[in-house]
């Protein structure tokens, strides 16, 4: 069984936010107006957050300031608090450990958004809209799953959405291998944020394969997980800045 996981090397990350943008175009996340964004309603499955490692740490003043950033996709927890609280199983953990969201079934109660300690879940406060130019370039990718609407499919209003580790890419890679009548290899599956990362700070792979790069990096002494103490067992592993 595969166990998909991501490693983010914070030493390499330059906080360019390329992962955020790649994710937006890959997954058709809707654009909101500046006023809505000021209310905190922008949707960024993969966000880049300025983060003092210690809240009391002095970040200093220019030109002697220090800044740290944390890029944050969904943690795809092994013990996801969001899946537990969903009353209708609109969010679920599939057999490969990816926490998925079925927009067809979601009732919009927002219990999962409240329960997630990482704030990775986003609600569609209104019908998603794009300018005509952008609407022409929406990704047509589809995901076959429990619902007909998953992954990059354009969401209706009133449902919750989140990072899926670009699960449509996994399904496509599998289908390609099948059509070419060969074994599917884990390297064929890369989420858009990992592919686009300017500094090559992101790694993705199967944790059960001890020879995979991501797996080797995860055993580094620099490795840590965000909010390790709350028992969610996140599968996104960070490498501390040296």
């Amino acid at each position, binding site marked *: 069984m595969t166990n998909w996981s991501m490693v983010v090397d914070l030493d390499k990350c330059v906080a360019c936010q390329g992962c955020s943008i790649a994710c937006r175009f890959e997954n058709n996340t809707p654009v909101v107006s500046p006023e*809505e964004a000021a*209310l*905190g*309603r922008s949707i960024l499955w993969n966000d880049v*957050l*300025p*983060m*003092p490692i210690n*809240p009391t740490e002095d970040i200093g003043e220019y030109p002697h300031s220090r800044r740290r950033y*944390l890029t944050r996709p969904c943690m795809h927890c092994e013990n996801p*608090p969001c899946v*537990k*609280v*969903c*009353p*209708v*199983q*609109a969010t679920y953990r599939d057999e490969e450990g990816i926490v998925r969201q079925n927009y067809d*079934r*979601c*009732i*919009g*109660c*927002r*219990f999962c*958004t*409240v*329960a997630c*300690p*990482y*704030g990775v879940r*986003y*609600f*569609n*406060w*209104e*019908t998603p809209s794009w300018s005509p130019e952008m609407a022409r370039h929406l990704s047509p990718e589809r995901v076959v799953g429990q619902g007909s609407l998953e992954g990059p499919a354009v969401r*209706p*209003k*009133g*449902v*919750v959405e989140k990072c899926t580790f670009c699960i449509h890419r996994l399904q496509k890679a599998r289908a390609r291998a099948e059509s070419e009548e060969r074994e599917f290899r884990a390297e064929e599956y890369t989420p858009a944020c990992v592919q686009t990362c300017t500094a090559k700070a992101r790694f993705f792979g199967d944790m059960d394969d001890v020879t995979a790069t991501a797996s080797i990096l995860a055993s580094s002494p620099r490795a840590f997980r*965000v*909010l390790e103490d*709350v*028992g969610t067992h996140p599968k996104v592993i960070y490498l501390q800045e040296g």
Partner: protein
Amino acid sequence: MRQAQVYHPDNQYEEAILDPIKPPINARDLLLWGGLLVVMGIGVAAYVRQFILGLGVTGMNRPVYWGVYITNFVFFIGLAHSGTFISAILRLSGAEFRKPLARAAEALTLFSLPFGVASIMIDMGRPDRVMNVILYGRFESPLLWDFTAVSLYLFSSVVFFYLSLLPDIALCRDRLEDVPSWQRSMYRILALGWKGHPEQFHRLERVMDGMAIFMTMLVVTVHTVVSWVFGMTIQPVWHSALIGPFFLLGAIFSGTAAVVIVLAILRKAYHLEDVLPVGLFNSLRKLLIVFSLGWLYMMIAEHLTLYYGNIPEEMEVFWQRFTGDFSIMFWVMTFAVFVVPILIFIFRGKNSIAWMVTASVLINIGMWLERYVVIIPTETRPRLLYELVQGSYTPTWTEWAITASLFAGMFLLYSIFTRFFPVVPLWETAETLEPETAFPEKRQRGFRGARRRRLGG
């Protein structure tokens, strides 16, 4: 077919209690109902707009995903605890003073519950998919516990309420000769052929005692489960074992205070001064003093533990309440729920309905604020984001309009009910349930004999 004998218990206040039902619907009723309907209409319009445009018309955002609607949900379910507390818990403890006010309190339960349920529906992003809860419901989710507990509570309350109303509907059927024919048919159908035999009263009392035990368990469960929607998450301050008992106490507290308000209004509007004497308010005053002190205890237990523990993410929420964005609300709440009411109860409340109502109104405003201050500050400082994204929340007019319409709806149902049904239980406050001369000698002996055997054996 032989005309069956019907017996009704004697009640010296029968005239006074039935008086509000007798006059036909007049201009004053229509004005009140019309006014409430207008308020409801504005709320319905706001909701339709929200349904079309999405929840973006509210002030909710990320990370404050739950706002006024969820506050209303908790508040209405809390109000609903008034009736069950008075009619079930006080019934079991044998507090006789509850009898005249049992129905007024139960009606409050019955008419606030639907609005609690409605609040959840209003808060949903996809209310059109509510059936998914039944089709795909998962019992691992505390929301489904809520769904189950609240629907069971609603159903049981209707049954409990109806049972205690039954003898009085029969009385209305037989005594109210002048009401319109549709109203008489309504009483005839709803009375289910009640005849008032001692055997019937005996059974009724037994069923109600049994249900009272069940309702007591349910009332404790329901509000604890409501709190668990918050308590089961791992968000700072919500995740506490105290949240269940605290919500329960708050619910019974605000519910009992609401009963004071309702009783005072009924007493004034329907001239029930003799039926609802000041003594009743004095009994409620004692209960409310106990609840205020219980509230203080919970408050200190919660906040002292938080402060002393000094866990960073919990302190963020703690300071949000005490000195931060919610401090005004927090301190207004503390004064409205505890400081002012306890002073009123101790120094002014005895024998003064006006002061009791003042304190009760303050308690209810304060308890609404308390629900708000328990729910929102945690959301503005979520566990990971408290140092990254600091949330804020300002409700919009849509949310206030819908809130107002929910309260208007509750008052509307209540005022309509009190115009068609006796709001003080006639049979429970009657001097005796024993038939005097209503039955022919032979049948009477039969019934009495049966009753005596049962009681004696």
